């Protein structure tokens, strides 16, 4: 479903030098699978996610989503994925129903179909009481539900969550986690990025670890634990970061 092939992204900085945010990144994610993109802040997770959602253009390399190529078929790529990030903004002056309908229409959906979908969200996300309230009057948890509904109104086969639980309280984060599991159960492909190790452990079928824009390991937790011989997740991560550095640049800069 998601096939990332040698993706690169560099940004030009003020002093004219290029900052390599993502470097030769390749991985894949299949239908009915939750893949977690794990890395510290600034590892290149958001940049990768933004490239996959066609907001940013890769400097080189490409990816396919549901078989559609990022650059050539960007409209089809966008139509086949749902994107949800932690700091997703909503239009405050619209009601929840208006907002969801707006996005549905942008996906060229018929109004009758949109109504049908909203009725379904009412049940599974328990949105009935606030559907016709303006977003500005909703609580954080309610807003998060509106965001979820907005991102999957068109029933996409691939869903991307970029730090979707960052800054949320336990109960709201739980909503998202439940939702992610239900997505997988419906056979969707889920790509989830986080810097929180425990979160990754809880939901991941497979983990893609990246550091400074590069892939350092792609495996399940169990494989990683076997490989490193460590149990603590943080230790495992540090172990991989260090071992990835050694061959390249002889302990030039240690991880703090």
């Amino acid at each position, binding site marked *: 479903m998601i096939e990332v092939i040698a993706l690169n992204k560099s*940004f*030009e900085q*003020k002093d004219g030098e290029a900052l390599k945010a993502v470097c030769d990144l390749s991985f894949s994610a299949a239908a009915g699978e939750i893949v977690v993109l794990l890395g510290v802040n600034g590892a290149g997770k958001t940049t990768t996610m*933004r490239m996959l*959602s*066609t*907001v*940013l*253009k890769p400097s080189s390399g490409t990816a396919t989503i549901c078989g559609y190529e990022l650059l050539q078929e960007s*409209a089809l790529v*966008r*139509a086949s*994925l749902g*994107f949800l*990030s932690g*700091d*997703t*903004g*909503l*239009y*405050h*002056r*619209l009601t929840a129903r*208006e907002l969801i309908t*707006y*996005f549905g*229409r*942008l*996906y*060229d959906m018929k109004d009758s179909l949109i109504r049908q979908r909203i009725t379904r969200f009412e049940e599974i996300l328990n949105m009935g009481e606030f559907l016709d309230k*303006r977003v500005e009057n909703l609580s954080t948890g309610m807003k998060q539900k509106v965001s979820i509904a*907005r991102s999957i109104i*068109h029933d996409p086969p691939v869903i991307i969550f970029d730090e979707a639980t960052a800054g949320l309280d336990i109960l709201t984060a739980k909503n998202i986690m439940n939702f992610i599991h239900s997505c997988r159960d419906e056979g969707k492909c889920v790509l989830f990025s986080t810097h929180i190790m425990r979160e990754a452990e809880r939901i991941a079928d497979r983990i893609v670890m990246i550091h400074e824009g590069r892939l350092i390991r792609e495996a399940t937790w169990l494989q990683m634990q076997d490989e490193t011989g460590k149990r603590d997740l943080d230790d495992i991560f540090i172990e991989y970061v260090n071992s990835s550095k050694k061959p390249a640049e002889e302990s030039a800069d240690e991880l703090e």
Partner: protein
Amino acid sequence: MNWNKVKVIYFKEMLDLFRDRRTIITSVLLPIILYPFISMFIASVASRQETKLTEAVKTVYFYDNTGSAEADLLYEKLSQAETLDIKHTRNHSWNDNFRELVESNNIQAFISLEDSTAGEFQHLLARIYYNDTDEKSQKAYVSIRETINKTNWEIVSQRLRDINLDEEILSAVDYAGDSVAAPQQILGALLGKFLAYMLIVLTLSSGSVVASDLVAGEKERGTLETILVSAVSRLELVTGKFLTIITFSFITVFMNIFSMYISTRHILGMAEIDMSQVQVPFLSFIMIFVAMIPLATLFAGIQLSLSTYSRNIKECSSYQMPLLIIGMMFSMISIFPGFELNYGYALIPIMNFSLLLKNILIGEYHLGYFITVIASNLILALVALRISVSLFNKEEILFRTKVEKSFKFWGTKRHNIFEPGFIAIIFGIVLLLFYYLGASWQTTAIVPGLIKTELLIVLLPVLLIYRLSKNSLPEGARLKATRPVNYLLMLLAVIPGFIIAAYIMQLTNLLFPLPASYLESMQKIMEVHQLPLVFSFLVMGFLPGICEEMLFRGYIIRGFERFGKWQAIIITGIMFGIFHLDFFRFLPAAAMGIWLGYLLLKTGSIYITIIAHTLHNSFTIVLSRWGEQLPILSGIVKNDNIPLWLLLVSMVAITFIAYYLEKFNPNVSPEHGTQSFSDNYGNSS
């Protein structure tokens, strides 16, 4: 592009806007409430004040030491005036402190009668001292004048009757003025003066609120990324937002104009002026509306670009400010007398709309101008729209969230004085000083003013910048000699160059005819030529030659050489044109600046351009002194008419000179020279 999606975006944005209480209050409710309220207040207060002033009794002191019968009659007549309270005084001391009394508004006027008899008949002169800043005193003055005229007529009639003549003898020719302007034209001329200004300012200010909310606001609220990942293309998104801004501008403009119209009618009704005759024809409304569409589109395009570039609403509003100021200044052109729409002005945005509106309102419909204005604004609008779409496609701008470093030059770290940004700021400061200080110096006394301007505003900053930044002036400003042949070539180019500049001036004049007031002010500058010859060459020729060259060719051009030789030459040339702060001289000056920039980079010596500049200016002096005696050039001086063949000869001459310059200076590659300068020099500072 899928118009269905554009429609979805458009309706959502409109809904979103109209749910914003601030927007509704400022653009819809405020005009409905504000204008009627203001107009009613002004109308009632003004009319009440007016009656009060006319009816109020004004105290006037009357001083007469002639003791004549005529004076007594005048006193009697003045006393009969209902609103005047005349106090007769023979006290001399009054004559000393009357001024103070009138000034302090204790009395409204003071009349001093003098005997100014020159011949057989008694003649009196009434000096009326009044305060022109006080309305009550003004009214007293009017009443006194009327009474004196009446008394004068009475006395003269009596004298005529005494010698058996009829007073009719005094009237031989009379006149009765009657303006042929139709009521619509009178109203149109009046409306035309300020309506364009109102429309432009309203469109800009209402558009800016919406535009900053639509993109910068979405960035601020984090909704932009959400919408970008949905199945909508950026072109559709920009178009939807674009239409929203235009619609909203029109709503605001309509609300304001409608409310203003009703209020004005109300005022006029109170002043008992019948407006039933002066309806603006429907066709005019349609034409104004049609002409506004491309202009509003242009504004929306610019504002959308600014909004896309900005990181947040606050940053966006600070970018909108200059646009509003430019809009105000350009739209005011219709207020000034002497500016008429022609094909030249029809190409300049805002100005063209302002002048076109004036024409439409006085009932002058010129299809050619109308189409030119619409077409030129439309083309610019499409360019602006194109820019905002391309900005929307630039990810470094769309996700520009890092805070930019604040500007500090005199900080601990030494900066490169050849940074284009820094140079732009220096240029801005010089322009401001030039405008505020230089102009006032020159109006006080033109020659010392010119000298002070050139030395303190133009030359001093360059010397200071080089000195304080510890950069070498001779190297930076290219104070070095070049091969003799270059001097010769430069000398040969002076007259052809002058003719080409004069021709460009003539073309500008054709497109944008100079207003009479402008010619008068230029005449004043020419008075410098009445000075001793050597002195005027020094002040008008050599001084600007050295000072302006040091600024433009000795400093400014350095900053732009990093973009390439021709880029530097053209940018500096344009700045040189702007520097003259004169719309009509912009093009000739810019052309001159480009030639000087070319000379500099070709020869690598500022001495060349200093001499060229000095000679060019001196040639103006020569022409204004002896031009009429010169064989071919007399035409330029007399009727400002340069024959085409002379222009062609000059252009050929310049081409040859440029050819030889290229030929004799193959090794002095300016780009090469610059590169080494910037590398070893600019960066080391």
